[in-house]
């Protein structure tokens, strides 16, 4: 099953991945990371994620890894 890994320590919470995901499986979390930002979290299931990598392509901080 395709899946993504978000590096929470690198995420600056810009949320560009949340608008890039065609299935809207990524959201901004409520907690704050070590940089002081609210990092993105994957909220879907592996069944829903297609591994299209658009979230990773849009991430300015290369904080997302995609496995397929």
């Amino acid at each position, binding site marked *: 099953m395709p899946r993504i890994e978000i590096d929470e320590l690198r995420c600056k919470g810009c949320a560009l991945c949340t608008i890039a995901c065609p299935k809207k499986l990524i959201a901004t979390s409520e907690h704050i990371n070590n940089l002081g930002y609210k990092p993105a979290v994957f909220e879907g299931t592996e069944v829903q994620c297609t591994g299209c990598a658009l979230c990773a392509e849009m991430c300015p901080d*290369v904080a997302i890894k995609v496995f397929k």
Partner: protein
Amino acid sequence: MQQVFKRPTSLKDVQTHFCPGCHHGTIHRLVAEALDEFGLQKETIGIASIGCSVFLYYYFDIDVIETPHGRAPAVATGVKRARPDRFVFTYQGDGDLAAIGTAEIIHAANRGEHISVIFVNNTTYGMTGGQMAPTTLLGQKTSTSPYGRKPQVEGYPIRMAELLSGLDGVAFSARAAVNSPKNLMDAKKQIRKAFRYQVEGKGFSFVEVLAACPTNWGMNPIEANERVGREMCEFFKLGTFKNTAEL
């Protein structure tokens, strides 16, 4: 299961100083991916400019020369002429390339130097505090045009990709954006084409990439990203303006 998206090897695994939602990070990655694709990491000399793009040497795992404000194309000329076997690219912002370095870019382009130029246009001076740049759109408020840019006072925004495409020395000139997955894929292709021009010895190549500057535009990252598509792409049309070798 294998990893289908990972950090390019030409890009160091470090945190960048860019603000949240700044497109510099994305454009850095696209350039690094193109270097990896052509296998150029070991033989590339990057030329950094002044502005937010100044820390190129912290983020790219390649040799980088830092230049005075606007002088990147002049330094690149010297490097490429001294070491024609090396791949040489400059990475400049709009304050650097379109204002302080206008003379350098126009003459390097007109001489048809065998270099590639990545021009990041975010319509403002990012690092120094959001002053008006030559690329600032009409009506746009900046710290030095607080009532909005007026053509009677500050003149019109410069379209660098079109301007340079009018010079005989330029082999390739294009404009792209990274505000949506579709535009980003197109930007990737344009950067690859520009690099191919140099790799195949076909002359001067130039790619303008439209970018967001959420901090200095006073917007959040999502709004700034939308502004690129809504306002910037309207004035700065995306496309290829010159492609002499038709790559």
